[in-house]
């Protein structure tokens, strides 16, 4: 069933739809939404098939472009980890795009065609980044996804264009630094293929070019992943972008960057080489830890739901990067599981923010009250589920990534990071329970006796409700069934674990 062409097929679907959508849009504008959903749907179906194939004992598929053998040719490497991440990002994108219909009509009715076409390019970039086995090719896909995300972020509120511009400047610098790092590695190894280079690196160990390259690449990818203190672009971008854009980019974008960091650190270099000259993993771990606390504290200070979620992303991405920096099996499991969990949680929460913006016209936390619960019972239930999962209450999904991360820190006897995981869970609880308390308990009628009438139910449309509900249910399912996912992840370990 699964052909050897699968790795190329999935990005190709996006490429084809990116062209198809403007063409079909010439004929009928409304088609763009359907085509975008169809495209992501197809891609997620193929990713699912590929992942099932991997689970049932499938080998790593290495797709060689033009038939050129690596290291001369470019290849796509569809191994377990890539299959898993591809599945996560495509499925989340599928659900988010289903949800986007009414938001697109309300927020940017005349830009639909462009919007959906660019989302396809964005997903092309992300899929390419995950799949490629070539460092320069990775840069190209990185830029494709980045350019698309600048465009998507610019579609939004008044301030969106300026925050997109800032992101563009910072993001391009990040990309360039990454490229510079690749250049240094190329000078010492003469190859760009990740697998090939991994075999050569031990021979050039101690060369100052390697350590320079490593630092440059970590900074470059760190900017994309919003690793503290390189996160400055993120909060504004996510806040002022259209609800659909932020729901698409927030759960996926930084995750893919974190995945690239994981590839570079653990698959390309490997824990021993990274730490040969400088304790890079420890530095990254400490930065991630500070980022976790910083993001959580800033999230508490926000009164705008989307901005709060954006800062929460800074903190959550810290978990993933912390897991990578632990460079042990539990840390790896925690990081990869958190890629899934956080994608689901953050997408679900951003969809809730989108629903509120559409219905109420704002998402200002201070104005939340218990009429929301009456008007949107299911939206609020989904929010509560995702929030509890973010806090890390068992048996929801969020608990288990924290559990494995905690085990990872204990394995390394890294009590500092263990304390950070615990403290940050508490901070998460503060900013989420603050909202939960408002939507279930704050009763304006009590303070102001005049409005005592019953508030009718006014739930969002099914196309917005179901994607969100599926994610909330998935959080429960992933939590309870996480052992199956984890046992799959244990087959994805990089060499040396």
């Amino acid at each position, binding site marked *: 069933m699964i052909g050897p062409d699968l790795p190329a097929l999935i990005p190709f679907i996006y490429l084809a739809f990116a062209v198809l959508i403007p063409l079909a849009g010439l004929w009928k504008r409304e088609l763009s939404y359907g085509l975008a959903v169809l495209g992501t749907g197809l891609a997620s179906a193929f990713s699912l098939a590929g992942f099932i194939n991997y689970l049932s004992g499938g080998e790593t598929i290495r797709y060689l472009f033009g038939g050129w053998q690596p290291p001369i040719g470019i290849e796509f490497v569809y191994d377990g980890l890539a299959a898993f991440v591809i599945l996560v990002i495509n499925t989340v994108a599928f659900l988010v795009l289903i949800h986007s219909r009414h938001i697109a009509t309300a927020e940017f009715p005349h830009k639909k065609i462009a919007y959906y076409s660019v989302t396809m390019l964005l997903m092309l970039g992300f899929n390419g980044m995950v799949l490629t086995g070539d460092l320069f090719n990775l840069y190209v896909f990185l830029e494709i996804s980045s350019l698309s995300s600048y465009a998507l972020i610019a579609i939004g509120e008044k301030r969106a264009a300026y925050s997109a511009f800032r992101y563009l400047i910072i993001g391009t610098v990040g990309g360039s630094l990454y490229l510079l790092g690749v250049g240094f590695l190329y000078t010492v190894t003469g190859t760009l293929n990740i697998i090939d280079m991994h075999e050569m690196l031990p021979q050039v160990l101690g060369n100052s070019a390697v350590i320079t390259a490593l630092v440059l690449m970590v900074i470059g990818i760190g900017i994309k992943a919003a690793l503290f203190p390189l996160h400055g672009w993120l909060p504004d971008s996510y806040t002022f972008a259209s609800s659909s854009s932020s729901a698409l980019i927030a759960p996926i974008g930084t995750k893919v960057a974190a995945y690239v960091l994981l590839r570079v650190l653990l698959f390309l270099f490997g824990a021993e080489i990274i730490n040969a000259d400088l304790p890079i993993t420890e530095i990254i771990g400490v930065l991630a830890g500070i980022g976790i606390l910083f993001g959580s504290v800033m999230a508490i200070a926000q009164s705008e739901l989307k901005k709060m979620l954006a800062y929460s992303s800074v903190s959550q991405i810290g978990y993933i990067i912390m897991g990578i920096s632990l460079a042990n099996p539990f840390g790896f499991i925690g990081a990869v599981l958190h890629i899934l969990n956080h994608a689901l949680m953050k997408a679900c929460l951003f969809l809730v923010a989108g629903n509120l913006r559409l219905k109420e016209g704002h998402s200002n936390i201070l104005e939340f009250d218990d009429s929301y619960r009456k008007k949107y019972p299911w939206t609020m239930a989904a929010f509560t589920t995702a929030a509890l999962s973010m*806090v*890390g*209450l*068992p048996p929801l999904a969020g608990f288990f990534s924290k559990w494995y991360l*905690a085990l990872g820190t204990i394995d390394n006897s890294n009590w500092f990071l263990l304390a950070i995981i615990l403290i940050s869970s508490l901070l998460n609880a503060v900013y989420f*329970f603050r909202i939960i*308390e408002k939507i279930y*308990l704050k*009763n304006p009628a009590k303070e102001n006796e005049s409005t005592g009438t019953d508030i009718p139910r006014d739930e969002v449309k099914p196309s917005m409700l179901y994607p969100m509900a599926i994610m909330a249910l998935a959080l429960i399912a992933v939590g309870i069934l996480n*052992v199956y996912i984890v046992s799959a992840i244990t087959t994805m370990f990089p060499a040396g674990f």
Partner: protein
Amino acid sequence: MEISYIPLFAVLVSLAAVPFILLSGKKPNLREFWTVLAGVVKFLLVLSLLPGALEGKVVELTLFEIAPNLPLKLSVDTFGVFFALIASGLWIFTSFYSIGYMRGHGEKKQTRYYASFAICLSSTIGIAFSGNLLTFLIFYEMLTIATYPLVIHNESKEAISAGRKYLAYTLTAGLLLIAALGVTYSITGTLDFKAGGIFGDVELTKTMAVTLFMLFLGGVGVKAGIMPLHSWLPSAMAAPTPVSALLHAVAVVKSGVFAIIRVVGFVFGPDVMANFGLNEILMVIAGITIIVASLLAFNQDNLKRRLAYSTVGHLSYIVLGAAMLTPLGLTGSIMHIATHATMKITLFFCAGAIYVNLHKQNISSLNGIAKVMPWTMAAFTIGSLGLAGVPPINGFVSKWYLASGALQGDMIVPVLILIISGFLNIGYFFPIIHRAYFKKGGEELSKYGEASPFMVVPLMGTAVLSVIFGMFPDLFFHFFDMATSIASSVFNPQ
């Protein structure tokens, strides 16, 4: 070991009642019928596990692995049945009492109340039957969340701030517990409860053992109300009285002490405890808590808050008994879980009945109420005498064994603490009884009568139970036999 699905059903039955309760929100009678039905079924299911537990059999049910090598496991040992029996049995009383209280008081959002209550009970039974620490943690956190809506039930400012305080304490505790579990798992590779402890073969350093124990204590100590982690409990008295009665005198706080005994007897084990002096830490904390809480109880004019401080003190009796590390002490400690439950629930029921009937919640305004509410005050007297340790009420039995346990371990201080605390108990309960019986009440009392039978019958019931179990501790449920066999299993593990 045998496999049975009864424990699972026992856990799930009240959870299964939740949809029915929610769906019949518009028909109060039907809704409350579901609650009572779930309570009775749950109690019978737990009861059916009793004969096996008395023979020392362990019923296990491994559901599925929730993390590699860490299954979601229910394992019903004697201790589990003991605790589950108390919680589910008293839930039936509380269900009836709730009907009287909530209707008598005209509370809003009763559907949410009954639904949360049912989830709480599921979690409590889950805690009782947890076969390993991870399963325990899951139910423990579930209990935290399910109790929250009950604490903030009346949605006043006071209740909301009590809710915040409650969450702050319990969620922090949950995190410490996660850390403790992680460390335990990485040291021992298992999280199963085992009579006599799981650290048997592991070399521990003193620092490690003390740190780990403090993490555990921080984790479960909040619900057990040990000082200085107790202060959420008096604030949580903002909840409706049935909640205070069942959850804050029985289910939630007893989960805390249940967990402490689990940690002492089934995770660390008496040997490790003694080797590293962990029992001394625990004993000092418990002793201080007992005395200080009893003294603080004097200060409270609000009846429920006084009862809450009394609860804090009595929970530490149980902790103290566990810390003695003697079989008799542990027996007394386990017995006190049962005896304090029946007595304190009686007292809370009384406080609620007085509140609903007379709208009085301050002790200073209780003058002469024994004339209008003779049954309630009779029950209250039984309960408070029992807590002070007067025979033949069951509080005496557990105190007797606690004291014997201390002497068995050649310890005098715990005995002194118990005696002093007994006097303090009399000291803070006597004024209430004195006012009720001997002071003359105001004129307005004459227009009131006894509270609704929905409340009076349950509170009399629990009071009578206290007396019966005081005279015949082994009647019906063999509580005493169970306590002895749990204690001997901890000290003489197979």
